[in-house]
């Protein structure tokens, strides 16, 4: 396929087509197998973190440098002089875009990346997370990890566990996987943190089956992917949390009936929602998943900033 991602802003998962998602995943696989240190040669990329996020920033900056690009930017917008002086985001973006070939940004306000794309004068903007809204590169690395472990992105049984109400990663992953055929979703959450209705409606409209559950062990034998997220203790009173802990915290014994191919994923950082005994099981994949963040971001930046990426079927 043609590289339709060239010069495109990457703001929100629903805006990426199935073919574009598949192209990014294929390119990430290529770059993991055969590193290419020239794809961003002579490119300068802004890595502007108006809100601190260590893992996302470091993996973006690693990706840029591994492809031969240069990085400018800041790790925390609160410490910039423009931030302290109260410059609007629109003005900051106008100025920084004039220095660079690509613009990676994270911002605590929802919609910041979309706004940046309107003021970047054609310089492609990559959303590194905008408040509780979107975090598309997390979803891309999740997809790459699923493909890497299962060999496909369709006909999968995927469970998502934890804070499904506020968790942007599970929202975006649902939207991305719903673009592929035959996927079945299992949502496991306390009632107070259930998946938003409008996303379930989208699944129904796209013809994907889903079901709601209150226990991980009920569905483990059916799963290819068990995607864990954190249930924030502070959302519940003490006795409620004690009950929730039993149902929504994963330990190794709960994986006894899992299929051999089943992988446990997590966007990290984990607190106590996956006990450390899971780390030693063949199902644990969250640290490899985090490493894959570099390859997924390499792939995305390479495709956005090059009309053609050699070695990748296009």
């Amino acid at each position: 396929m043609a590289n339709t991602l060239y010069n495109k802003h990457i703001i929100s998962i629903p805006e990426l087509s199935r073919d574009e998602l598949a192209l990014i995943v294929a390119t990430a696989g290529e770059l993991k197998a055969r590193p290419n240190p020239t794809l961003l040669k002579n490119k300068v990329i802004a890595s502007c973190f108006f809100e601190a996020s260590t893992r996302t920033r470091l993996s973006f900056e690693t990706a840029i440098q591994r492809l031969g690009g240069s990085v400018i930017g800041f790790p925390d917008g609160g410490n910039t002089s423009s931030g302290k002086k109260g410059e609007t985001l629109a003005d900051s973006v106008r100025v920084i875009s004039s220095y660079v070939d690509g613009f990676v940004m994270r911002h605590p306000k929802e919609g910041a990346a979309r706004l940046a794309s309107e003021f970047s004068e054609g310089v492609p903007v990559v959303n590194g997370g905008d408040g509780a809204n979107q975090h598309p590169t997390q979803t891309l690395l999740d997809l790459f990890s699923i493909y890497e472990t299962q060999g496909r992105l369709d006909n999968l049984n995927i469970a998502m566990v934890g804070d499904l109400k506020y968790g942007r990663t599970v929202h975006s992953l649902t939207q991305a996987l719903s673009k592929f055929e035959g996927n079945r979703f299992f949502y496991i959450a306390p009632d107070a943190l259930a998946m938003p209705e409008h996303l379930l409606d989208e699944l129904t409209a796209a013809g994907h089956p889903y079901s709601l559950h209150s226990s991980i062990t009920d569905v483990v034998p059916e799963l290819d992917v068990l995607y864990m997220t954190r249930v924030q203790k502070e959302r519940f009173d003490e006795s409620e949390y004690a009950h929730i802990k039993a149902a929504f915290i994963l330990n190794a014994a709960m994986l006894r009936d899992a299929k051999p191919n089943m992988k446990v994923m997590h966007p990290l950082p984990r607190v106590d929602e996956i006990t450390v005994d899971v780390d030693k099981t063949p199902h644990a994949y969250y640290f490899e998943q985090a490493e894959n963040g570099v390859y997924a971001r390499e792939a995305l930046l390479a495709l956005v900033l090059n009309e053609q990426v050699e070695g990748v079927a296009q």
Partner: protein
Amino acid sequence: MSTDNKLQVEAICHGTVIDHIPAHIGFKILNLFQMHGSDQRITIGLNLPSSALGSKDLIKIENVVISEDQASQLALYAPQATVNQIEDYQVVAKLPLTLPEVIQGVFRCPNSNCIAHGEPAVDSSFRVLSEADDVKLRCKYCEKVFSREIMTERH
């Protein structure tokens, strides 16, 4: 009934009559069209009897012709309203109230963490999502979806 209305709200020679507005929505519509600062003569009828609605509001604006775009925005508040353009005391056109695809610069995003707040260079912008009778608006920036009621009640 029409005789009663004529007695209660005087006819206008030239301008726009917005009729069949659900009761209590009239002031919001004045606000929507920024009519409170207008120099034109505006006649407002509140809680008028209506065979269709029980009670209704009605607005007559002298010398102001509402465009189809403006009428589309009105559709969000009062889908059953009628907008008549008046010339020489006669109705010369009835504007259709069809929901617009996008509503720009009218509503403030209810999400307080949306970047659209506090950025003077951008207007709020919402895509109208309409399914059967259910109308929702999705903010272009924060991508959150809000019901018609949330948007119109806050305005």
